[in-house]
């Protein structure tokens, strides 16, 4: 017979060929090499992070403690810029405008993006064409988008009023004090809905097909599948989108500058627009601009922390 039953002898102790210290030294060397290589790969990113993020933020902190303008002398004033913030010109209007803007645009963007994504995910042929069309506004620079909307909202020859007239209505002053902020928010929806739609499409396509087949067999209607499967399974992604879209919403600036120049009056003056005014406008108070920026940075940081805390849960659902 070819195979004899053999029992492997147990290895006697004390037969290692290297001393334990030598094992420790070699293992330490190996770890060190890996660490050095890892840091070498990370170094360029850290360099960029320091140059383009840490240093500017530190600069902002430094400037926020000083009075004066971009040009000319500045002097240290301590926390005065922060203490005076609530009383500075247009502060409350800027905060209110920004919040209203975010409250209009963020829900519309995300609900719209989710609806579009659900439709896009179902398209079997020609999906890429629709995806491109939906994504196209994202590729348009903010300034160009604002110029397009400047034409569309023109009282006399704009597309919007053309439609209103066609329906027998009276022309609307879209960029007047009543509607300007809403138009600005809708423009933001137009620009960003495609981005989040594609983001959601990727998530929806990644959901396991079997779950939907099982749900179909279990008697779940299309609405029930959305309610009990898609939304709970996408909970983390939707939540991430809410936070990021809100952060972006709080930073609206370029379209406000081109479309309405913050007006009429202060109707569309947002927080960042106010920063820009203090920085480069007639008032030229770099300290105040920096102080507002810092408050915004801290607000966004807090939002991010809340997001991270809430996303720490283990499952996608509930």
């Amino acid at each position, binding site marked *: *017979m*070819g*195979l004899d039953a053999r029992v492997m002898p147990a290895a006697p102790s004390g037969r290692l060929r290297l001393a334990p210290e030598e094992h420790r030294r070699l293992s330490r060397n190996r770890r060190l090499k890996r660490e050095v290589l890892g840091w070498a790969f990370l170094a360029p990113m850290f360099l960029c992070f320091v140059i383009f993020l840490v240093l500017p933020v530190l600069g902002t902190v430094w400037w926020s403690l000083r009075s004066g303008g971009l040009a000319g002398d500045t002097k240290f004033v301590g926390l005065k810029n922060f203490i005076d913030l609530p009383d500075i010109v247009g502060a409350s209007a800027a905060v209110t405008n920004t919040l209203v803007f975010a409250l209009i645009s963020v829900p519309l963007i995300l609900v719209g993006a989710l609806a579009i994504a659900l439709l896009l995910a179902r398209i079997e042929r020609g999906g890429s064409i629709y995806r491109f069309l939906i994504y196209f506004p994202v590729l348009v620079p903010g300034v160009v988008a604002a110029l397009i909307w400047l034409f569309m909202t023109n009282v006399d020859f704009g597309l919007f009023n053309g439609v209103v007239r066609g329906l027998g209505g009276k022309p609307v002053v879209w960029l007047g004090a009543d509607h300007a902020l809403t138009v600005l928010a809708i423009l933001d929806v137009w620009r960003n809905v495609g981005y989040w739609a594609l983001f959601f499409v990727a998530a929806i396509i990644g959901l*396991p097909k*079997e*779950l939907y*087949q*099982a*749900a*179909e*067999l*279990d*008697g*779940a*209607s299309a609405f*029930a599948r959305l309610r*009990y*499967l898609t939304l*709970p*399974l996408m*909970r983390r992604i939707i939540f991430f989108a809410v936070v990021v879209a809100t952060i972006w919403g709080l930073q609206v600036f370029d379209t406000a500058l081109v479309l309405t120049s913050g007006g009429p009056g202060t109707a569309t003056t947002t927080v960042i627009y106010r920063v820009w005014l203090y920085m480069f406008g007639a008032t030229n108070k770099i300290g105040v601009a920096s102080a507002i920026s810092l408050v915004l940075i801290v607000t966004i940081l807090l939002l991010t922390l809340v997001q991270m805390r809430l996303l720490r849960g283990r*499952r*996608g*659902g*509930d």
Partner: protein
Amino acid sequence: MTPTDTYSGPAIELIEVAKHYGKVTVLDRVDLTVAPGEFIALLGPSGCGKSTLLKLIAGLDELSHGEIHIAGRLANYLKPAERDVAMVFQNYALYPHMTVRENMGFPLKMSGIARDIVTAKVDEAASLLQLDAQLDRFPDELSGGQRQRVALGRAIVREPYVFLMDEPLSNLDALLRVEMRAELVRLHKRVGRTTIYVTHDQVEAMTMANRIVLMKGGVVQQVGTPAEIYATPANTFVATFVGSPPMNLFKGRIEQARFRGAFDTAVPARVMPGDVTLGIRPEHVEIVEAGEKEALAATIDLVERVGPDAYLRLTTQGRATVTARVDGASRAKEGERVALRLPPARLCFFDAAGNRMIVDKEG
């Protein structure tokens, strides 16, 4: 009362069921009648169309041609939920964000059943499947076997007319698979519902099913009980797919009640002369004393020991390769010269193309 309560005909009838994707035929005119309470295994290699057939029955895919009748009703145009079938998926398809209780109760909740009845039914199924302690856990907190049971539970609570199972044991380790196999058979006996079970594992099909539907390339090769499929394979594909090691096949001619090919041996007198493929199961190949009547000289090329059995790979003088299954305690050695005999009563015959068995009642 559901329409199925008073029905007494076949549970499922498939009439010329076909599925094409463009020019590719995945299923080619499948006919099958399943009796109520029967356990049918759809067996075949990957890509043979067995899972597609299951999805067509479930209503998860549309058929290109034919009719599917479930409990006497034409099911072609019914939604999956209206077919009164429940399905267990290969990867279980448990809802990851729902607890075991919510997963099992989901189909009942969707059909608008009152919450207390849902709770009672889920509790009952959980106790049947020994899942009582896991009801508040999430799927990712369960072992493979437990997940498998939850998937079964979700199917059971609905009390469907038909159970469809798509390779439900293939993700389990070997030991657990054997355990769950027995559990599924017990469950089938207890619940007594018609079950269609897709598998590529012949052992599962042979041990669990009342009847096996063996498929290849979208075509049904044979329908029969496990014993029929094993003893009287309809063609060489069935002969080699079922049985491990597979049946030995040799091409040759029948002349004057003898097989003449790589070797020469007696066959039953009733076998018609002509070109044939001769088959014999490895366990029917006899190792005999040299010089015995009809003995063929051969050399042992390889001995594979698998515990209770040993598989001998032999080469005859005419260069035919024969596999023989012998007792695991056999002292056979590689390179040894032996004699083997192919008992005429154990031989199977296929036509030259290997597609149709030549019926030979003596063999």
